[in-house]
Every structure is written in structure tokens, then in C-alpha cells.
């Protein structure tokens, strides 16, 4: 034993001594060296792919990274949805949940921009690449500024030479400087890039305009509804609001005028059409999307969100979300649960409760007894007979031969809905629960920027600028495609435009969270607020359903400090010139 130990030690010593020779100072053969990247086209492509991948898009794989065994989607921060049972969130954050201090990504982009000009490729090709990286870097800074307000603006690769620490510790720029930088960089990027993407998933000129319209909308809302604090490190000057609304309006208008994109309208059935918009890969509405490749990089929303008793149902839309969808005649979307006396209405066909709703409702939400490839979504909270309400938490319990609760809840298995609803947007009915495409993920793309959003951005900027007829046109494009009543000019208000955005973009990439945050409405909409579930009960004698409502989950509060994320304290200890945001 001892002998063996000695020999190991000796070997170790020898190995250690070996490294003293320069023999080992050779470049690793399996990693391409920085200087070689820019002489090889496929290496540049790979570098670009890495840069794209670092954009913190809150796609359908994105889960809020908090320490819990939970699967938390952005829609749970706004009451669009709740998680399934026992996984309800008891908070909407503390200022650290949505961190992204992406300066490693910024550095990679800076490195690329510094080296690409000397690479030996045709100028056209280099211009295209440079434009793409300017777009990506602007996207990084937009993601930083929307979270933290002003951040240090670093556009050159920083290197430590032993004595320049002070110059590497950069203080925060103002929020306005960052938004202005994003705007001018996207203009440059748009000039350099072509009208069509060189390759699927890469940005083009219109992606730059679309991102600019989005970013300017955030800047304008910050100016209009926020406050300047910390000498401008957070907040935008109120006097500049119109300038940014106009910038958003102009950027969106370019896309609209050039007519390279259009709303998806391939199917006659409006609901099927809206559902397919998120699944059809040949889509005239997609401006910028994330693509996947099975099995290397997959998206697993179908696994987590589907109505699947054993492990699914992580996105359960609330009754509030369901009722936000209007009826096709343009009337308020409140469901008719009770008659004028307040007694529950009986529905022989439970799905009839949802008749006449905005077709986008059925394309976005699976409601009780809607049809789905694996059969109707059976959601029943219990049975009423002789005035008695019979409930259970076990699907196998029968009452006179009938399952007391539905196969898909409410109650029973852990993966069942807690609100009576499941999400449908982005779920692919071509798969069934047992498919590998569900359990292991699939390559259905995620659309980050679509023409529908551009129209809504245009409408919002227009209504804020007082251009009512422009706003009405854009909102009616959306409503016409959706299949609901168009609005007259007089009906289009700021609230109507925001409402259209809420239903059209529901469950897409945390849009609602960032929207209510930039409108400074989040602390009013979510303050000690519980959300509502819809409980269908079967009346045994009348053979009909009635619907009751129940507040479920925890009371949630959005504290005003969440209007800015906390700067990570570890970054402040590295760079003492960083000033922390208020209230942290």
C-alpha cells in the first residue's frame, strides 16, 4: 500500500515537473484559436451562431431561473397563467430573477467587430456579417437597458495589462445614452444588412427595424410613464417621449411600407389559422425566429405545457386571461356563467360556454372540453346531485359509474390544470403525448419578431402621438386577421391598443411582463392579487354543466422596485464605480 502510494506520488511529481518545459505550450488541436477564426468561413459562421445564441430571448424553453424544483414561465409573473398544483409561485420576483449581465456576450461581439475588417473576404460578405453583429450587440444592450436602466457602454475589447485596472472599471452610462446607442447601431446594422436573411435564423434589415421599433417603444414608455432617478442612470427625460414614440413609429412604418412581410392568413378557419401561425415554418409573418435541430438543440414546450396528466400543465391560463379575449362581435369577453339572478347557467354542451369568442381564444387556450388530438380536454371539478357536491382528488373514484373528476383535472394527477384551462399557442397537435417529439423535445421554431408585433408597435406609437387613424388601421389589420369586429376610429384608444396587444401576444416570450412594466402598470395590476380558476361541475340529474369560479394560488405583489433589476453585487465589488439601482 505504502509503496504504491509512493510510486503514485513520484509519478505525480514527475508530471508536474514536466509542465515546466515549454513542450506543452502548444495550441490545443481541438479548439480553433482566436486569430484563425477570421480566416475561415465556417468558423465565422460558428462564431456568429454563438453570438445569436447568447441573445437572452425568453423563448418557450425559458424558465425563470429561481432556486426551486419548479418550472416557472414568464406568463406566471403577470397572471396570464398559473403553474399546476403545489408549484404555485408565491412571489413575482425580488429583482434578481430576470438577471442578464451579459458582458461576456458583449465582449465576444466587440472582438468580432474588431477583427472582421481585416479578414480576407469580399467586402459585401464582411458588410453583411458586420451588420449582423451590430444588430446582435444592439440587442444585447437593449436587453441590458430594459432590465437595469443605464449600464456601462463598452464597445471595445478590454484587456488588462497589469496597471490599467482603473480604466477597465467603467461607470454606468445614462439610460438615455444606451437607448440612443441601440437606435443608432440598429440604423447602421440596417444599412449593412440585406433585405433577406443570408441563412435561416440570421437577421436581416427588417429584423433591425423591428428591433428598433420595439426598443424605441420601451424608451418612449420609460420617458412617458417612468421617472428619472440617480441623475439619469435610470429613467428617461419626459420631454423626449414624443421623439422616441416617433422613432418607433418610423421604424415600424418602414417594414409596413416595404411590404416584404404580411400577416399569416393561409387558412379559412380563423382559429386554425392563428394556431398554425406559430407552427408553420413557411411563414410570411416571421421576421426573426429561433430555429432548432433535433436532437442537438430542441424545444420542450410540448412536454411541459401539454395537457398530460403525469407531467405537464405547467402553463394554466387564468380566467382573467380567458375573459380578456372579446367576443367576435367586439363585446366584452366576460363569460356567461350566471343568469341575471346570479344563478349558474346550465350548459348541456359545456363547450358552448365559449361560443362566439374571438377565434384567437381557441387558438391560444385549451378550454374545458375543447377538442385535442388525444380526445376532448376533460376538465371537471366534481359532480352535483340532489344538491350535494361530490368531489375527490382521485380520477379513479366513480359516482354511479362516472368519473367524479375529469381525466385532465381539476385535481387528481400533479400535471393537471389548476385553473380549468391549458395553453394551446405553440403546442403542436400533430404530435401525441407518447411521441418522442413531446417527451424529448422537437425542432418547432420560436418566433421572436413577427409582423403582427410590428403592427401593434406601430399602433401603440401612433396612438401615443395622436395619429388615431394610423393606430386604427394597424389594430384593424390584426383584428381582421383574427376574425373579430373591426373598430371605428373613435373607438381606438390607448387602452384598446394595449388590450389588443395583450390578447394577440399572450404567452409569447414574456411580452406582457415587460409591457406592463414599461407602462408602469405592473404594481397596480398585481398588488396583493389572486387569480381565478374556472371549475366545471356536472349536474347529474339535469345532465348539464355549470361553472363556478374560485380564487387560487398565492396573493402576488409586484413591488415598484422591480421596475429595475438589481445590479449583481458581485459586479459592483469588481467595479466600484457602478451605482446600485434604487431600493436594493
Amino acid at each position, binding site marked *: 500500500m*505504502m509503496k504504491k*502510494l509512493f510510486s503514485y506520488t513520484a509519478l505525480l511529481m514527475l508530471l508536474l515537473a514536466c509542465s515546466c518545459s515549454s513542450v506543452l505550450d502548444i495550441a490545443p488541436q481541438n479548439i480553433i484559436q482566436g486569430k484563425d477564426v477570421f480566416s475561415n468561413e465556417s468558423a465565422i459562421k460558428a462564431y456568429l451562431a454563438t453570438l445569436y445564441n447568447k441573445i437572452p430571448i425568453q423563448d418557450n424553453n425559458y424558465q425563470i431561473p429561481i432556486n426551486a424544483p419548479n418550472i416557472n414561465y414568464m406568463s406566471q409573473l403577470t397572471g396570464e397563467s398559473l403553474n399546476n398544483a403545489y408549484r404555485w409561485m408565491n412571489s413575482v420576483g425580488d429583482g434578481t430573477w430576470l438577471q442578464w449581465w451579459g458582458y461576456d456576450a458583449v465582449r465576444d461581439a466587440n472582438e468580432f467587430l474588431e477583427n472582421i475588417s481585416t479578414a480576407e473576404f469580399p467586402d459585401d460578405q464582411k458588410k453583411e456579417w458586420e451588420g449582423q453583429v451590430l444588430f446582435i450587440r444592439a440587442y444585447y444592450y437593449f436587453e441590458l437597458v430594459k432590465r437595469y436602466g443605464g449600464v456601462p457602454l463598452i464597445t471595445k475589447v478590454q484587456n488588462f495589462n497589469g496597471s490599467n485596472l482603473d480604466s477597465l472599471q467603467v461607470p454606468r452610462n445614462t439610460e438615455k445614452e444606451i437607448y440612443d446607442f441601440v437606435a443608432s447601431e440598429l440604423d447602421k446594422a440596417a444599412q449593412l444588412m440585406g433585405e433577406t436573411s443570408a441563412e435561416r435564423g440570421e437577421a436581416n434589415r427588417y429584423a433591425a427595424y423591428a428591433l428598433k421599433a420595439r426598443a424605441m417603444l420601451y424608451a418612449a414608455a420609460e420617458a412617458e410613464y417612468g*421617472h428619472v432617478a440617480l441623475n439619469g442612470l435610470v429613467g428617461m427625460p419626459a420631454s423626449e417621449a414624443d421623439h422616441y414614440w416617433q422613432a418607433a413609429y418610423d421604424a415600424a412604418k418602414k417594414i409596413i411600407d416595404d411590404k416584404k412581410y404580411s400577416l399569416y392568413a393561409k387558412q379559412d378557419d380563423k382559429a386554425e389559422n392563428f394556431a398554425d401561425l406559430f407552427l408553420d415554418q413557411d411563414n410570411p409573418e416571421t421576421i426573426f425566429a429561433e430555429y432548432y435541430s433535433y436532437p442537438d438543440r430542441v424545444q420542450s414546450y410540448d412536454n411541459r405545457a401539454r395537457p398530460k396528466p403525469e407531467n405537464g400543465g405547467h402553463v394554466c391560463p387564468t380566467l382573467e386571461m380567458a375573459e380578456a379575449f372579446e367576443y367576435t362581435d367586439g363585446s366584452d369577453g366576460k363569460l356567461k356563467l350566471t343568469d341575471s339572478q346570479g344563478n349558474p347557467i346550465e350548459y348541456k354542451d359545456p363547450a358552448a360556454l365559449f361560443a362566439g369568442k374571438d377565434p384567437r381564444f381557441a387558438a391560444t387556450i385549451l378550454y374545458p372540453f375543447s377538442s385535442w388530438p388525444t380526445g376532448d380536454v376533460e376538465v371537471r371539478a366534481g359532480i352535483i346531485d340532489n344538491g350535494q357536491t361530490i368531489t375527490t382528488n382521485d380520477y379513479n373514484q366513480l359516482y354511479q359509474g362516472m368519473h367524479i373528476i375529469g381525466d385532465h383535472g381539476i385535481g387528481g394527477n400533479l400535471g393537471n390544470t389548476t385553473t380549468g384551462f391549458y395553453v394551446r399557442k405553440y403546442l403542436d397537435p400533430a404530435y401525441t403525448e407518447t411521441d418522442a417529439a413531446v417527451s424529448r423535445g422537437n425542432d418547432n421554431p420560436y418566433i421572436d419578431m413577427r409582423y403582427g408585433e410590428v403592427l401593434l408597435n406601430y399602433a401603440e406609437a401612433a396612438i401615443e402621438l395622436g395619429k388615431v387613424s394610423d393606430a386604427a388601421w394597424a389594430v384593424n389589420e390584426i383584428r381582421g386577421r383574427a376574425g373579430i369586429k373591426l373598430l371605428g376610429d373613435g373607438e381606438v384608444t390607448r387602452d384598446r391598443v394595449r388590450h389588443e396587444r395583450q390578447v394577440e401576444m399572450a404567452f409569447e416570450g414574456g411580452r406582457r411582463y415587460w409591457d406592463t412594466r414599461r407602462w408602469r402598470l405592473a404594481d397596480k395590476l398585481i*398588488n396583493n392579487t389572486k387569480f381565478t380558476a374556472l371549475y366545471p361541475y356536472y349536474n347529474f340529474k339535469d345532465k348539464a354543466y355549470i361553472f363556478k369560479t374560485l380564487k387560487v394560488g398565492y396573493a402576488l405583489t409586484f*413591488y*415598484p*422596485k422591480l421596475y429595475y433589476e438589481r445590479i449583481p453585487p458581485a459586479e459592483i465589488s469588481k467595479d*466600484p464605480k457602478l451605482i446600485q439601482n*434604487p431600493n436594493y
Partner: protein
Amino acid sequence: MHYRNVLLAISVLAAFASCTKNTDNYNPPDAGIHGAVVDAITGDSLQSEQPNGFRIRLIDEGYQDATPIDFWGMADGSFENSKVFSGTYKVVPIEGAFFPADTQEVAIKGMVEVQFKVTPFLTITASAAAEEGQIVTKYRISRDSVGDKITVCKSLVSTHPTISNSIFDKAVTHDLTGTDDNEILATEFTDTLPGLEGGKTYYVRIAAATNNALNKYNYSRIIKITLP
């Protein structure tokens, strides 16, 4: 096998051999600061909420560019931090529903008491009466210094004494964004909080806010009421 255990023991011993008891450690903080933030005009303590009401900032003058030490104050306007190193500090209350306050220089040694006078954005005087199954509040909003536009006021009721803008069972809210400030200040508000249980003890509070940068609320005192 034994050898391995012995070796392990030796290496553990060796690892800890460098630890000594005294040379490496500072004494723990032995001083503290406590006190209250009061309304400069009325002399009453500032009514706030917990958490997220206001903070006390300590800046140690013994260091250049010292990182500030911030801690939260309590709902009744008092504050206490009993784990501070002795020394001279600049102390200031921040991020509350009041206009920026003056900094005080405080020599902290032992437990020191400090009082801060601040001007709240709004002052609320309220009363509440218990009725059958409900509570009726009456209140007025006043101010000593004109700041941002008054945007909202609300009557709150809770079974918890920690009642605040975000902790309540029932609330009656008035959106005042479209109402002129002078009109608001001249109004006596009356709210009815219905649907309460008889025999139960409730806490009632009025909250009001201006369009201030940090969205802070001013509060009335907490009124404790047992329903008949």
C-alpha cells in the same frame, strides 16, 4: 486500509494546523444605532410599511469611498441596527415617502439614539368606526410641501397588523389622477369596507401616494377595531 485512515488524519491535522485563534479575526461589531424618523411639522413618527418602507444609510467615514450600509426601517417609523462597528458615520434616511432628508454625522459607540426630521409627501389623518359587518373610514389628506401630483388613496383592512398597500384583505381605492390636488386636499373621504365578520379584530389603515419616482405610499396610523 489503516494506513489510509492514518494518512487522512494526518492531512486533516496538517490542513488545520495553520489556523490560530486570535491573530486572524476582528472583534464582532459591538455598537448599534436606533431611533425614529419623524414628521418635521407634526412631530409624529413617520407612518410607513414593512418591508419596502424606507431605509437608513450608514456611510463609514473611516474609509475612503466606503460602501454604504443600508438597512430597512420599520412600519412605525422606527429603526434599529444593533450590529455596527464603532466609528463615525454619515447617517441619512433614504427611499421613503418623504422629501430628501439632511444627513447627520453620528459617532457610533455603544447603542446610539438618533432622530431624523423629514417632510412626508402627504400626511393622512383618519378615523374608523365599526358597524354591523362593516367598517366606515373617514380621512383627510394634507401636506406641508407641494411635491408630485396626488394619484391614489385607499382604505385598507386586514386581519394582520402588518397591513400595508400590498398586504390587505379588502380595499376601497380612489384613482385621483384626474382630480385636481386642491380638490383632493379639501375633501373628506368616507369609505365603507363591507363583508367583515362580527367579533373579529381588524386593522384599518389609509394609504395615499403621489406620482413619486419610487412609488412610495404615505400612511395613516394603524387603527385596531373589533367588530360588534
